[in-house]
């Protein structure tokens, strides 16, 4: 019984890697995500449709395509990747950083959508009021806008995190399936389905994935309700 409830080293590795990769993916896209969301919600500019389209593209593209594009761009011989490797010694190939980038790209539109929707709901009269009280645009953003869109930010972060956890196609195409580096939960599960006698292990990973996803959703629900109540008084 105890053996059933304890994780094997392989499972632990995959779970830890998944959480690590997803955490970094979300941290990396949060600042640009908030900025793009704000830009799309509030500004009119030349090429807005293109920015909007580019932001949403990962949502509709097959993840394998994203992985392949990343490989072409950031691979060691890729357009940007070669430069990064030769000049700065940075490589994303076959390590967790590459997996985080794949997850980040795929999760980005979900984050932006959630935050953009909440920015559109903010009463701009409140921001105008803050301006007349002596606050500059940046201060208004951080003391009025950000607190008011916090529920949207939390929703976006959890959605992005969940999407990162489930990321498979872009990751395996871009950085392959390397134990301890890029073999996250879904990749580990896939690996087990490809070997004889892997069913039990695959099933266990399946349960772990469900539990993690369920907790993420619960956390999202509770935290956005808590924040929402704090805002509405």
């Amino acid at each position, binding site marked *: 019984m105890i053996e059933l409830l304890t994780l094997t080293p392989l499972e632990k590795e995959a779970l830890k890697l998944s959480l690590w990769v997803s955490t970094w993916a979300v941290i990396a896209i949060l600042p640009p995500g908030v900025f793009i969301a704000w830009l799309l919600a509030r500004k009119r500019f030349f090429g807005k449709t293109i920015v909007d389209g580019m932001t949403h593209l990962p949502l509709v593209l097959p993840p394998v395509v994203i992985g392949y594009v990343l490989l072409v761009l950031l691979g060691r011989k890729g357009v940007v990747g070669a430069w990064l490797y030769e000049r700065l010694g940075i490589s994303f190939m076959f390590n967790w950083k590459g997996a985080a980038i794949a997850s980040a790209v795929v999760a980005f539109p979900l984050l932006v959508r959630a935050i953009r929707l909440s920015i559109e709901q903010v009463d701009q009269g409140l921001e*105008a009021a803050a301006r007349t009280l002596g606050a500059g645009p940046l201060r208004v953003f951080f003391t009025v806008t950000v607190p008011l869109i916090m529920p949207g930010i939390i929703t976006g972060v959890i959605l992005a995190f969940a999407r990162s956890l489930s990321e498979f196609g872009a990751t395996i195409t871009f950085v392959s399936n390397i134990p301890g580096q890029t073999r996250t939960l879904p990749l580990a599960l896939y690996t087990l389905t490809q070997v004889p006698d892997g069913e039990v292990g695959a099933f266990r990973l399946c349960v772990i994935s469900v539990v993690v996803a369920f907790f993420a959703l619960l956390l999202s629900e509770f935290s956005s309700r808590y924040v929402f109540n704090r805002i509405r008084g």
Partner: protein
Amino acid sequence: MLEVTIHKKLGSFTINVAFSSGDSGITAIFGPSGSGKTSVINMVAGLLKPDQGQIYFDSEPLFDSEKKINVPPNKRRLGYIFQDGRLFPHLSVRSNLTYGMNLIPKNGRRLGFYDVVNMLDLGDLLHRRPAKLSGGEKQRVAIGRALLTSPSLLLMDEPLSSLDGRRKSEILPFISKMQKKFLIPVLYVSHSTDEILSIADSVIVLRAGEVVFTGGLDIKLVREHPEFFPTFGSNNGVCG
């Protein structure tokens, strides 16, 4: 002394106004809805940019299209009390009140926190959230919040229009009292003759984006010019 000469096109509507208002007292900007009152004080506040013209306060430019000056709203040192209060829902009453106050250096604060709180009778509300306040209480907090930034001019955009008759008569004395106590000139936008008669010293009458009358305000003027003050005597005010 506020001196305004502005021109602004808003779609098919044009605002073309010139007026000045005194160093003290309450000046009403009066006119029916759609006459451009709110747009005018939004331009004074810096929330709306005129196409052309000048806005000077105490000989300092706030806006001058020829000199390409447009001081941002946060640097204009004006207090603005909005029709709908616009309290920050995520902050307590106390934090709302101190939001602007904390942004000015201590030696620049001309009004004490508790002076304002006591005058507006806000002592019991400090820990509440805006959502838990009545309409009249919200407007008192909004007035206090603007006052605490030590503004050199207060702009009020129909601050009583969202309140019913009894609440209105609660707030009006506060506005007069505040003006007399702190001697801050007030620009008071309203479409109610009764309301401005009870508190304003002078009036600027707007019609379709243009000034049609300026001068001191008293009951005699109102009686002699029914074309400017048509609503007088109708039962929407606080006096009757």
